[in-house]
């Protein structure tokens, strides 16, 4: 896995890429997400366009970030969920938990509407 991040319209966009399978890579995303929370950057879009696949470790990171953000008054949204990851979200019913958007712009726009 690789991880790049940027800020757009005051919202943090995290773009992991490759496979999220656990091990040294997984903590990269985990650490970054928790660092955002510490930095009081609580509106986060995780852009999954470049993620080939993830396993339950990846889902666990997303869930833990989602709940941590929510408990701190923040919000995590997904963008560009690929077919493979969408299937996993359906299988695990996490599709009912995450707000997902077709593009990063749409995800960012949805924060403003509140």
């Amino acid at each position, binding site marked *: 896995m690789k991880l790049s991040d940027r800020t757009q319209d005051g919202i943090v966009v995290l773009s992991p890429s490759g*496979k999220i*399978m*656990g091990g040294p890579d997984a903590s990269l995303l985990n650490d970054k997400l928790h660092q955002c929370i510490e930095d009081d950057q609580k509106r986060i879009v995780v852009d999954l366009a470049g993620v080939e696949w993830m*396993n*339950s470790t990846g889902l666990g990171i997303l*869930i833990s970030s989602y709940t941590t953000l929510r408990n701190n008054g923040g919000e995590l949204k997904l963008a560009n969920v690929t077919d493979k990851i969408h299937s996993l979200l359906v299988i695990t019913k996490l599709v009912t938990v995450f707000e997902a958007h077709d593009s990063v712009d749409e995800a960012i726009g949805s924060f403003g509407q509140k």
Partner: protein
Amino acid sequence: MDKPVIKGNTISVPSKLDHLADVDLFIEGILRGYGTDESLIADIAISVSELVNNAVSHGNRGEANKVVSVSINKANGSIRIAVSDEGGGFDPEEIANPIADENLLKEIGRGIFIVKSLMDSVETKKSDKGTTVVITKSLQ
């Protein structure tokens, strides 16, 4: 052991999550050699990564001197993969349901459930050497 070792269709790695990627390269290589389609390769690779994670963390309890072995073969239009650790095993039928409301937001506990969903069968075998989880997937 401090490196992956290949013997025929088996790869053995030290019990460390750093070696997840090594197992993935070998297994994805074999599957491509079989001519498996890309979507199925991803499903199998995801499942193997779950089982290797479990073998390292639960089976071998993170003891890096222990070994995890992954074997793969194809017979009768079906792919069969066995993931072995040196631990005491578990019953895949007795795992809490991760899609029950009270578990939905838990960080862990989805691995075997995902493997069961993606593969055709998941079985565990215990011996005095350790535990082997065997998964199969038909190529149709």
